[in-house]
């Protein structure tokens, strides 16, 4: 993560549009497909959460438990996925010496299953 950012900020002095392009290019070049998969999932979760929150504000929060379950599942899944991303990121390898990517995924999967168990109990 640190590498692409420093590259982007050094080049972006010319114009902001150029900077974004450079950022995107650097991200594409330096991020592994596995992290891109994680990022895609994170973006999806974020959009889903935003949509539900807007619906709750603008339309109705009436079955409030359903809102809490739906929104909470997005937030919880986002947190778990973000943790997974941190743990499997090769740049952070030094901080998580004991945690292999397989173990990180297993913890992620277990956490998610527990989360979904609570979400569906809370939904109806």
């Amino acid at each position: 993560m640190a590498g692409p950012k420093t590259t982007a900020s050094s080049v972006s002095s010319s114009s902001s549009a150029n900077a974004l392009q450079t950022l995107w290019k650097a991200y594409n070049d330096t991020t592994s497909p596995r992290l891109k998969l994680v990022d895609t999932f994170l973006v999806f979760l974020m959009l889903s959460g935003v949509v539900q929150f807007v619906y709750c504000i603008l339309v109705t929060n009436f079955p409030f438990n359903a809102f809490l379950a739906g929104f909470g599942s997005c937030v919880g899944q986002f947190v778990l996925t973000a943790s997974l991303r941190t743990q499997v990121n090769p740049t952070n390898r030094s901080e998580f010496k004991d945690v292999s990517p397989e173990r990180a995924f297993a913890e992620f999967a277990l956490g998610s299953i527990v989360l979904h168990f609570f979400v569906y109990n809370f939904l109806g």
Partner: protein
Amino acid sequence: MRSFWSLLASVVGLATLLVQAKSSSGDSVLVLLDPSLKRDDFSIFFSGLEEKGYDLTFRSPKDEEPVVIKDDYPQFSHVIIFAPETKSFPKDITPQSLVDLLSKDTNLLLALSPKQTPLTSLASEFSLITPPPGTPLVSHFPERDTPATVIPVNVSHTSPILTPGLPPVWFSGVPFALGTNPLLVPILNAPPESFATDSLGDSDADVVIEASEKGGEGLWAGSQLGLVAGFQPAGGARATWVGGVELFSDEFATKEVSSGVKSGNEQFAADIASWTFQESLVLRVDSIDHHRLNETAPREHYTTNDQIVFTTHISRYNPKTSAWEPYSGIQDLQLEFTMLDPHIRTALPPVPGKPGAYSVTFRAPDRHGVFKFVVDHKRRGWTHLHSSTVIPLVPPRHDEYPRFLSAAWPYYTGAISTSIGFIIFSALWLGGSESKKGKGSKVE
């Protein structure tokens, strides 16, 4: 021998059926007849009652026996008091005891006269305002050969109590003004050109006019005055006040109102007697029934917003057969679903094809509490129907609410898509693990 006994039993049964009175409340009648009135002068009225099956007991107001109330129980089903001139009644007949009789479902038929008696003051307790003593009803129209106080009165054709198409009836006695009491049932009103006065001669007409112009009591005149009025208190007993006892006499019954036309007195007297003695216009609520729509058994309580079916069965007494028959003729019956106030008041129409049944389906209010089904039908002349059934209305149990609402679909979709996303993500993650090793090592 056995067949003889059964035959005897059936004959006795038939005989009791035949002598059974037509009234819905009993057949014993006490007639309190003033000594100045001869029983034979009212033979048409009394024999008419006896033919119907009533058991008449005559008693002079001076006699002490038989008493009307003994040990707090009324001894007769009906009491006729034809003692318009009696000033002092025996001690068992007081205004209080007569009111007590009414509250114990004994019917009263009372006659007044221009003289001031205890009955006159009792009449004011029934919202009948009597004119000053000694002022009979007088009318000089139509021209006739009788005294001015003997008046032919046209019978109202709208009253359900009377036989339709009655000829005019002869009346002689005192009128009374009708108060605003809703329990009063006007039966016969005075002719429009009649008035009440103490001076019978035409020479005193100026005095009458002067008195009326002075105000005060004013002029007792016009068709607003009542001559015969019924009163039906809450208990269902009936009291009828008649302005003059001569209305029931044989003389008036046989007297012609115009050439060749017999007066309506005989039928009129029989009609008011049958109303007073609870033969005609007698209704009762036989049963009530309530259940949820598409169910048959009643519940101990209902849930808010339930669809409730309420049915009641109403019977009318038929004096011809002495039996209660299902009656579907009430068109304006209403049901109230009440908690302090009626939360729902709806029409309770008769069910076509089911005699006597009235039914309505309604949605219970969205309000829990102790409610009542109330059927309250009070119409002048008819028995008052009142039925009240307490029923609790409870909120839904925790598992009776709708579970999945259409408004919540975005949230359901959000939760489901998260799960599907998680599964797809896991599949891609695990499926891409082999290639990742190569790629990951390349990046590193």
